[in-house]
């Protein structure tokens, strides 16, 4: 059952990796169900939000989160600690979302707009959100991810750089260029 909730404070993608991150990864590799539950408790909300903002469907977002946990289990032994565990986790999630989007493109189907729950900004016009969602859907993967992770999820450019495998400066530039493009179309949305 889906129950609408207001988004509460979400954890950051995590700062620099540390020994705890490696321990978490080794427990994941060993299949420790308690650590997976802890990861879900800590990152689950943000994972769902990122997935939804990439896929636009609750069902697809939940599938992507589930798939991400399976990938973590399979790949945890390869976690090197170069990025924080949270960043690594979001990188896997974003790539999983890309896979879903590509499969969807191959099926030539449009994902239905699944917008049945409340949002964090109750005072913002729903029409604007839908319009922005549609504008984001038209963006290339990377630009959409940078916008989503920075503007919607509030991650830093450094974190986004690590998740998407680009430099911090590139992330900043991509966001600026994307917002500049969106701004032109946004004037029409706001005007109407």
């Amino acid at each position, binding site marked *: 059952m*889906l*129950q609408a909730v207001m*988004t509460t404070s979400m954890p950051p993608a995590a700062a620099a990796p540390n020994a705890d991150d490696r321990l978490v990864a080794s427990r994941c590799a060993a299949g420790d169900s308690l650590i997976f539950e802890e990861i879900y408790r800590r990152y689950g909300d943000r994972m769902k939000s990122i997935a939804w903002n990439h896929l636009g469907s609750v069902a697809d977002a939940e599938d992507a989160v589930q798939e991400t946990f399976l990938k973590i289990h399979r790949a945890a032994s390869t976690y090197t600690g170069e990025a924080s565990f949270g960043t690594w986790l979001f990188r896997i999630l974003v790539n999983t979302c890309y896979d879903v989007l590509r499969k969807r493109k191959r099926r030539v189907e449009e994902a239905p707009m699944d917008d049945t729950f409340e949002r964090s*900004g109750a005072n913002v016009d729903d029409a604007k959100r839908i319009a922005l969602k549609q504008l984001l859907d038209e963006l290339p993967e990377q630009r959409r991810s940078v916008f989503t992770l920075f503007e*919607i999820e*509030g991650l830093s450019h450094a974190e986004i750089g690590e998740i998407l495998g680009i430099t911090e400066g590139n992330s*900043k530039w991509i966001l600026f260029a994307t917002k500049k493009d969106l701004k032109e179309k946004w*004037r029409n949305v706001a005007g109407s």
Partner: protein
Amino acid sequence: MTTITCSQIDDLLFDGSPLAMQTAARHAETCASCAETLAAWNDLSATARSMRTSWENEMLWPRIERSLRAEPKRTPRLWQLAAAILITIGLGTTMFYAVRTQTRDAAFDETILRISALDEVERAEKAHVAAIDALENVAEARLEDPQTSLMIAYKEKLMLLDDAIDECQANIDRNRQNAHLRRQLLAMYTEKQQTLQDVLREETNVSTP
């Protein structure tokens, strides 16, 4: 207070820091065009922030947990360990033989080089001996019937040298790679050559009235 121009608004939006946005806002108060740009920019950000979302699905975690439990264990199986050991042994053996063959090849190459150097020395020796024999043939007639005491001494000396050369050659035949013996032999041949030249020179002197 920093005054900016319209052309700098993009730089401030790119910067995106609170200070840059405040500066842009101050400029927008006096510029309608930049005010519109800034409003759209901020509206985009505000709308985006409202799109952060979450929902509760009590069934999601149990579903994930079930799928994780259904995943095969990541621990290596016995056959995988055995395969790893076999591969390690195989690679080790291959490396051992490769290194050994390489060492053998190197030793073989060294021997070949040594033999080839030896052949070269022997060829040079033969040429040297042939030249001396030719010289000896020229001097032989006089040496068979020496006319002076000096020529008799030369003949004895050459006979001694020939004996010594034969003995040295016999030793070399038993140990072809003995460089010391070869040097001795060369010295004796050189001495013989010198003596033969002296014989011929002496013969010329004697013949000269």
